[in-house]
């Protein structure tokens, strides 16, 4: 049974159908990315899984539980961790305290939370920054902090919302290598929304392509990327013609 199963899920906002009858699944041990041009509905789908929005139709199953109608905090308690595309650190707290917040899901003792958080930060190479305030840090650190906080909740599935967006390519690739090591931390699967294709190509096992709310392709990155419908979605119909020739 897949760890995360999305069955025929739809969501509309007013007159706009953001996500239309999308189905996909993520297996244990997989790294899966949802890609697609702007406005494809990736973030909406993401928010449906994490409970920020509720689907109008369809079902989402996680680890055997029906999470279709679940609020974000219940989803987190079930083992779904997430990062935010626009980083949301707790600005007035330190890096360590930010991470402790995640650790508190499994303990009520600040001392234990501090220990666990320190471990996560060490894994992510952030020990030196532990006691710095979260605000005023550079973007690469903030992105790692997002991951740290999510990791501290000991999730089974971690969902990354454009986790390398805005990073220079070198940083992005470094982060990608780090992501590949997440299973060492007990993560069963990784899902995400991504724009930066280099990262996707490097580490993804599965790629799902959305366009205008509809799934148009699915498969291994090398296979999917060359499909005409995918190129058309990104670059427009002209290029599809070019390819045919």
């Amino acid at each position, binding site marked *: 049974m897949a760890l995360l199963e999305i069955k025929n899920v739809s969501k509309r906002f007013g007159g706009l159908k953001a996500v239309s009858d999308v189905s996909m699944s993520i297996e244990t041990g997989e790294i899966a990315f949802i890609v697609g041009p702007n406005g494809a509905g990736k973030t909406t789908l993401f928010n449906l899984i994490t409970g920020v929005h509720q689907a109008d139709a369809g079902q989402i199953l996680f680890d055997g539980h029906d999470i279709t109608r679940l*609020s*974000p*905090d219940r989803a*987190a308690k079930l083992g779904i961790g*997430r990062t935010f595309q626009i980083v949301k650190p707790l600005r007035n707290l330190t890096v360590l305290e930010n991470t402790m917040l*995640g650790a*508190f899901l499994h303990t*009520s003792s*600040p001392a234990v*939370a501090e220990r666990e958080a320190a471990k996560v930060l060490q894994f992510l190479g952030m020990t030196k920054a532990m006691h710095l305030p979260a605000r005023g840090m550079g973007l690469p650190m903030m992105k790692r902090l997002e991951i740290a906080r999510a990791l501290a909740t000991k999730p089974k599935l971690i969902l990354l919302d454009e986790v390398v967006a805005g990073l220079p390519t070198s940083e992005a690739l470094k982060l990608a290598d780090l992501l590949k090591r997440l299973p060492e931390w007990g993560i069963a699967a990784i899902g995400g929304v991504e724009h930066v294709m280099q990262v996707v190509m490097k580490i993804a096992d599965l790629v799902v392509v959305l366009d205008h709310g509809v799934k148009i392709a699915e498969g291994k990155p090398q296979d999917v990327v060359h499909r005409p419908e995918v190129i058309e979605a990104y670059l427009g119909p002209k290029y599809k013609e070019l390819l045919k020739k």
Partner: protein
Amino acid sequence: MKRPQVMIGAVIFLVALLIPVFLRNDYFLQVIFRLFLFASLGLAWNLVGGYAGQLSLGHAAYFGVGAYGLALLSPSISPLPAIVAGVVLAMISALIIGSVSFRLRGPYFCLATIAFTEVLRLIAKNLPNVTGGDVGTPVPSLFPRNTMVSFYYACVGLTIVAFALSYWVERSRFGYYLMAIREDEDTALSVGVNTARVKLWALLLSAAISALAGALYASLFLFIVPDQMFGVEVSVEIAILPMLGGAGTLLGPLVGSLVLETASEVFKNIFKEAHLLIYGVLVVLVVLFLPEGIVGTLMRKLSWFKSAPPTPFASTPSPGPVEESKRVPLPQPTSE
């Protein structure tokens, strides 16, 4: 970690406990009584307004319910159970008010808290057969003998309890959750915090302490009227004191009360009528130049004083030219 603030607090309490040994002037004791009463109210407010960042302008509701609970129930039952009942009623009010208000964000939350307290005030005014209406209602004295000193010690005791409670909250997971909610509710949700429930718990604690303070206050003055207990001015005073001292800090509400209540008393004697004016000027000055409050600013400037998480308003840029380039999203009334 928070040692300096705890030490200073302990010293203040020690001095307070010793004052009646040397000084038996009732007027003076009453002034300090008021000071500590509002400190305890400020500490209570701080749980919700400071740590959790939910800026309530309706805390007079719990203050008043506690007072009226004692006043209206004590003909039938003895004072102590009446006080407990008042606390319970205040907590029920908090449950109702919180469930509605906490779903709102920003100014809407503020306005909702004001509205609820106003409703209570008007109910108290419009039911003269029950509450005595505008004329008011008598309150039994909790300490018929050795009155002022007993009230004094009860009040300082309550403040010490509130202080200890705040200290415990600050160092617990509950406190971390409150601060996370203040900083970013979505983030808190994403790590499994049931923000609605946490906020309600903070409000329940806050209401309980406020109700005790209300009962104590009412009992000293032996007579209460709706405007005095439920008025917006009271709610504003309850919120302003910790803000001046430093919202979200341990020592802030205490310092704020010390400074503002002393100043207010001095002004009342020197300027007589103009004290509200000076009060208003003080509020404006604090907002413009000391948004983090006294303790908050000290925490930022003095490293030895530091280390506890600073105040919520430090997260907004310190006063200076407005950054017009900051894109401001339209304030949504609810969390949706």
